[in-house]
């Protein structure tokens, strides 16, 4: 109802307003600015930053008007919303969506194909990191622009390590170092743990395992994405490391909450190590933690990490709006705007040329440790398999991880069981 009233009011007022500005008084028709809607799904400082950027865009561009709202949820809750919206043709033009959803989202006929637009040399598509480009390209179709890229690093509490008589980890530290130091730092009496691992059953429990598997020479699925490969020797070794830490050493706080208690514990000085990404840096600074950043512990000199690119996915209403969306996203993801966004939010550069921007040094200074995370992008070599079944597979592996870390199963049998379920899920045609 309210919307109807607003629409009626807008219909009455807009023509007058636009005529005054010399427009022809019609929206969405050739000649007038194309209006597009974006759901940003950002929180707090990031939301404010993106809103400022959009305001700047609207001031400097007359052909496209971008309307922006959060979408009513944070990024985690975006999937049900976009699903409902797509079913009802109520979808925005642009939405902030996790890269892991891309293979499924791309199946929707309303997902736009930006392939012709990214070929424009002004977009400098190749300037984006390869992993990001791969994520938004599904079956040869480009469904959006890279939005945010991150990767997994280890954050450590300097004070806790010093108290335990430990030197901060060097960048070539190993799995054994990680285990031994975590054990040393654990003090059950005082409620201090070496590190934490989520066991709540979602992807948050799973994605940290993959870099270990990759480092040990394993893969998640076979090359044709038809069968599980994570139950290899590499997989077993990786999960067994975590098991030994959680079960034998009792140096891991097992986090069963979706509220991410792990971060809270790290901030309150209860965790020596915390596997996370750049997004926690602003929080850590606010909490006044004396932290350091180091790349993941490696095995045989391999320190591979995982990165989870998020996307600005574009949905179709009509061709003009798709074109406008592409034009706006090309602007938003250009180095100048990105540097501003990075300074505001502590995000990582999503394209190579940003580091040549004049203000890049200020950004590095503002977020101590960001240089390490940024440099760690080079260790992000592989992505999670782009199959529509990945969310399901992730739930099988999450189950295996939880049971192993709780001492209910050994790494090998838990992974074998997850692999059997994975094979069955992948055997379903069309997946």
């Amino acid at each position, binding site marked *: 109802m309210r919307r109807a009233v607003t629409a009626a009011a807008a219909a009455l007022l807009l023509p007058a307003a636009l005529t005054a500005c010399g427009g022809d008084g019609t929206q969405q028709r050739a000649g007038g600015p194309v209006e597009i809607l974006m759901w940003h799904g950002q929180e707090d400082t990031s939301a404010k930053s993106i809103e400022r950027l959009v305001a700047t865009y609207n001031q400097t561009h007359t052909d496209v008007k971008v309307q922006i709202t959060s979408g009513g949820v944070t990024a985690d809750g975006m*999937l*049900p919303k976009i*699903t409902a919206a*797509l*079913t009802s043709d109520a979808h925005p033009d642009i939405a902030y969506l996790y890269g892991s959803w891309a293979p*499924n*989202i791309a*199946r*929707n*006929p309303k997902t736009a194909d930006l392939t012709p637009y990214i070929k424009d040399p002004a977009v400098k598509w190749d300037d984006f990191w390869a992993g990001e480009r791969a994520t938004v390209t599904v079956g040869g179709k480009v469904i959006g622009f890279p939005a945010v890229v991150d990767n997994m690093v280890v954050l450590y509490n300097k004070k806790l390590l010093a108290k335990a008589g430990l030197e901060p980890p060097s960048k070539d530290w190993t799995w054994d170092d990680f285990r031994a130091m975590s054990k040393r730092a654990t003090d059950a009496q005082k*409620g201090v*743990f070496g590190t934490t691992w989520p*066991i*709540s*059953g*979602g992807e948050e*429990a799973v994605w940290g395992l993959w870099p270990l598997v990759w480092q040990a020479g394993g893969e998640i699925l076979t090359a044709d994405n038809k069968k599980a490969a994570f139950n290899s020797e590499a997989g077993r070794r990786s999960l067994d490391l975590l098991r030994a830490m959680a079960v034998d050493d009792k140096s891991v*706080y*097992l986090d*069963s*909450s*979706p*509220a991410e*208690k792990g971060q809270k*514990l790290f901030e309150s000085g*209860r965790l020596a190590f915390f596997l996370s990404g750049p997004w926690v840096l602003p929080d850590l600074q606010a909490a006044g933690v004396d932290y350091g950043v180091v790349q993941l512990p490696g095995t045989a000199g391999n320190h591979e990490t995982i990165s989870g690119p998020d996307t600005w996915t574009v949905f179709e209403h009509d061709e003009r709006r798709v074109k406008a969306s592409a034009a706006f996203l090309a602007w938003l993801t250009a180095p100048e705007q990105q540097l501003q966004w990075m300074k505001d939010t502590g995000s990582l550069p999503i394209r190579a040329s940003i580091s040549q921007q004049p203000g890049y040094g200020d950004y590095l200074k503002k977020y101590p440790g960001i240089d390490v995370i940024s440099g760690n992008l080079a260790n992000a070599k592989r992505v999670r398999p782009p199959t*529509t079944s990945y*969310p*399901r597979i992730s*739930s099988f592996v*999450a*189950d295996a991880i*939880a*049971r192993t870390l*709780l001492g*209910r199963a050994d790494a090998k049998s838990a992974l074998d069981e997850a692999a059997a379920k994975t094979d069955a899920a992948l055997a*379903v045609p*069309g997946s």
Partner: protein
Amino acid sequence: MTSTATALSRASRHTTPPDRRKLADNITGWTFAGPATLIILGFSLVPMAWALALSFTDSDLMSPGRNVGLENYRALVADPVFHQALRNTALLLFLYLPASLVAGLAVAVLLNRKVRGIGFYRTCFLVPYVASATAAGLLMGYIFDRDFGLFNGMLVKLGLPAQGLLSSPSQAMLVLTVIFFWTRFGFSVVIYLAALQEISKEVVEAAAIDGAGRWATFRHVIVPSVRHMTVFLAVWGMIDVLQFFDLVMTTTKGGPANATVTIVYYVWQLAFTYFTAGYGAAVAYVLFAGTLVLIVAGLLLARRKGAMR
């Protein structure tokens, strides 16, 4: 509900000619009941039909699914997570329902007396009923944390071994049951309290004069007099349990190792995490049919028992 039929048969005592009366009753009846039922049925029948159709497809809600016939329902038989969700939900049902009825009545009896400050106690018991899932999840996540929670802290102080609680696959569902009980139990107390206040003192005192002990009075006077409310609470509680979702979302997200996945939570995961909405719809329909059978059976049983008295 149980006496709808009797109420209906009694309702038509009148003096006007039967046909006109009937027509008038039909018109008034529908005018009174129409708007409320129209809203409810309108918002459920259409979505239900949609979901039924969905359950025969392999739709992911992204692309138009293919028709797979009864394949989804067949897949249920062999799905271990579905079995676990069934077990989890059944556990919740069998623990929560009797507990809320027994404890609800017991506390209501305790509160149904004239003791100084009884109003204060009553308030204390009712207060958790207002807690939203967000608030309850947040608070209880702290209290029942394995390593830092107040509950384990207390156990340790008492010299008892700390428990796995929300981190333990064998205890997490029990803890959720306790939390659920905490938020809902006040409601049973209120309902029973209301019922108890209806029992006339004379009846209770007459029983006492007849030499009935306290327990006998409770068993033969109080329990039968609140029977109607017990049926009501059982139906209500069952609906509540079978729709148990929010707390799972705010405390454990179904973990650890699927220990707290309930059927509706599984439906949600299937539709919005795993992109298998067609299958999720089949699970929802099995839940719907199962509950309907349970409730109808329960009501019939209650009616037969009532008739025998």
